[in-house]
């Protein structure tokens, strides 16, 4: 069964460093997403991406964040200069087609720890 894969599963970084989290969405899906979950808090929407551009983003997704689909298979989230409060589990998700059925297929997450 096709699945969304994320790497790395866990990354530890120093405050101020750049981090890139990688995702391989399901191959025939058209919409891609990043969500995050700070420990003990809700899963929060960051950004959605369609047709090589951001289609929607939340207030959390400020200038420190960027997304890219560099090669037609990977979907990346970059955090330019990490802060302590960026420590969280980051989930990538994808969904098929243009019909909004709300079914997102999630990866297992990348845990980011900022020291």
């Amino acid at each position: 069964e096709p699945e969304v894969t994320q790497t790395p599963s866990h990354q530890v970084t120093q405050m101020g460093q750049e981090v890139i989290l990688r995702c391989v969405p399901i191959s025939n899906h058209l919409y891609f997403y990043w969500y995050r979950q700070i420990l003990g808090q809700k899963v929060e929407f960051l950004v959605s991406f369609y047709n090589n551009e951001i289609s929607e983003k939340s207030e959390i997704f400020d200038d420190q964040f960027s997304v890219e689909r560099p090669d037609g298979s990977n979907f990346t989230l970059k955090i330019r200069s990490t802060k302590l409060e960026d420590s969280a589990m980051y989930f990538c998700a994808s969904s098929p087609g243009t019909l909004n059925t709300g079914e997102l297929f999630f990866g297992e997450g990348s845990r980011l720890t900022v020291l």
Partner: protein
Amino acid sequence: AQSVTQLDSQVPVFEEAPVELRCNYSSSVSVYLFWYVQYPNQGLQLLLKYLSGSTLVKGINGFEAEFNKSQTSFHLRKPSVHISDTAEYFCAVSEEGRRALTFGSGTRLQVQP
């Protein structure tokens, strides 16, 4: 903006007992409603969804949920739980026309033998 409230952070229950996980939402526009499940060390998986039509929706693993517009609720139920149902359950909403999901804080279902 919409919001989702899951009042119960943890629900302990014995195996084969019934369970209800509560979810209430608020929104000024029409919404779609979802329940996702997260098993340990895995990503979130869709359990069931309400888009329109019948207010009682059935999902995977014997779960069902009922949309109640007047009470703005979408409670999840299962008549008889198994040990394997132990997981975190998230209620989520999206507004019609938008793809972003707003999640509740999650309910940890702990099924005991």
